[in-house]
């Protein structure tokens, strides 16, 4: 059986720092896989390598049996993989709806010639896209905030919008970089419920997550990363029960 996402032997060195060291793992289709590990373990670097923002020194990434090596971030989105960023990177001066619109892969009206010479066709396409964007916003519970500028949204709403924006790309594999960090109470519950809902709809999720309680509640599989290397993988219960991993995670010296 070929894995849905297969990462093999990734190495990346930044000067004196070995950010990734022979890092290999797989992600199963339709599952929520949590990527955990102490700060600096290489979690975001892995995301960058998978999504084409970083070219690894060696190693391969395969998605549904197709190699992603050497592909640009743009091409990788077309393969059906999209990611969010730890620092959000939303378009702060655009409305929530326009942020989602920017993620849509229907490119009608995105060139100047189409916009100028086919104005009616473009207007129709735009109206259709706006409806689709509203549907995506409704899906994450932001339909009432569609015309609000991003900088006027609460942090929790911004986190939801990040997910909405990559849902708009139609990607099947979602890479979420700390979707719950900085959230608590109702906002945290809401994001967790959304992640489960996405899974139920057939999406596959690879999630960087620091909160062990969240990991326990949402993860099917856990990948434990340390010094850029996959140290362990298993069910959340197995990973959390391992005293050696807990020591690393909570400030051990291993």
């Amino acid at each position: 059986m070929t894995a849905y996402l297969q990462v093999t032997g990734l190495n990346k060195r930044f000067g004196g720092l070995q950010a990734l060291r022979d890092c290999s793992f797989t992600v199963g289709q339709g599952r929520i896989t949590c990527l955990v590990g102490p700060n600096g373990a290489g979690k975001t670097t892995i995301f960058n390598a998978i999504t084409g923002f970083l070219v690894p020194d060696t190693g391969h990434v395969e998605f549904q049996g197709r190699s992603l090596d050497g592909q640009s971030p743009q091409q990788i989105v077309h393969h059906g993989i999209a990611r969010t960023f730890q620092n959000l990177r939303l378009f702060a001066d655009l409305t929530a709806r326009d942020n989602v619109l920017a993620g849509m892969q229907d490119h009608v009206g995105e060139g100047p010639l189409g916009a100028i010479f086919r104005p009616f066709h473009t207007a129709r396409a735009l109206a259709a896209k706006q409806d689709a964007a509203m549907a995506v916003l409704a899906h994450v519970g932001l339909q009432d905030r569609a015309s609000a500028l991003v900088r006027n949204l609460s942090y929790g709403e911004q986190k939801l919008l990040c997910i909405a924006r990559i849902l708009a790309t139609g990607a099947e594999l979602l890479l979420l970089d700390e979707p719950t960090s900085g959230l608590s109470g109702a906002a945290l519950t809401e994001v967790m419920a959304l992640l489960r809902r996405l899974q139920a709809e057939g999406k596959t999720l690879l999630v960087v997550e620091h909160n062990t309680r969240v990991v326990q509640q949402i993860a099917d599989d856990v990948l434990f990363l340390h010094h850029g290397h996959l140290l362990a993988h298993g069910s959340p219960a197995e990973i959390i029960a391992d005293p050696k991993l807990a020591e690393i995670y909570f400030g051990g010296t291993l």
Partner: protein
Amino acid sequence: MDFLTTYIVLAEIYVLLGLSTNLLVGIVGIFSVSQAAVFGVGAYLTAFLLMHTALPFPVAVLLAAAFCVGLNILVTLPSLRVSGDYFVVTSFGIQLLATAVFTNWTGGTGGANGLPGVPAPLILGHEFTEPTEFIALTTIGMALGCLCFWLMMRAPFGALLRAIREDELAVAALGKSVLGAKVSAAALAGAFAGSAGGLYATFLSFVDPSSFDLDASIFLLTMVVVGGARTLAGSVLGPFVLLALPQILALIDIPTSIAAAARQLIYGLLLIVFMLFRPQGLLGEKL
């Protein structure tokens, strides 16, 4: 009435330049200080074609505009590799280079003396010599420019350009071509500036380097800042306000030697005052 008509014709030409500058600087965030250079190339090229070939006016302007499309893509390309403040330095260099060529290439541009005797536009046997006639051309040019700008900004293309200004990396992460969109914007800005140059050269029937130097580029930026960045209304209002200034100064009885310096001083002050107290300009998007 010639006085007023001349003012309107020039302001309408500068609206095209305002659109060009606003598109690059305001919408996409490519801080170009060399738009006057592209404007100049459009003007010189149109003048050259009309003086040395038998090409009709519309064809000459279209050719000049097409050339400026290519040129503006070329001079904007460094912005793909050097971003933000660093591009200003590159763009500054391009502007100085252009001024040097305009001033020193006496064979092509007439050097500091300029090119006199650019023929007036001849369309369907009618010659547009008087400002009262020429205004038809500039009004059509301005209207077309504004229409294109409006159509683009309300299309997904406009949203894409704004998104690029805010975060290129995030745009790439959404599967969009940042390069393609930037090249398109640069091409359009080049077309606007090039056709403005063609109209300018034929209206004044004279081109010289002083209209296309660094001061002129900064004047274009001042227009966008005062009128209002990122909006169509701002690009239109800015030129009309700033070009009215010398006319108003002319009404006050001060010696011409002081007037020129006073104008620069006022432009500079306007730029500072607006940056401090109303950075979005008169009709711009709130920053």
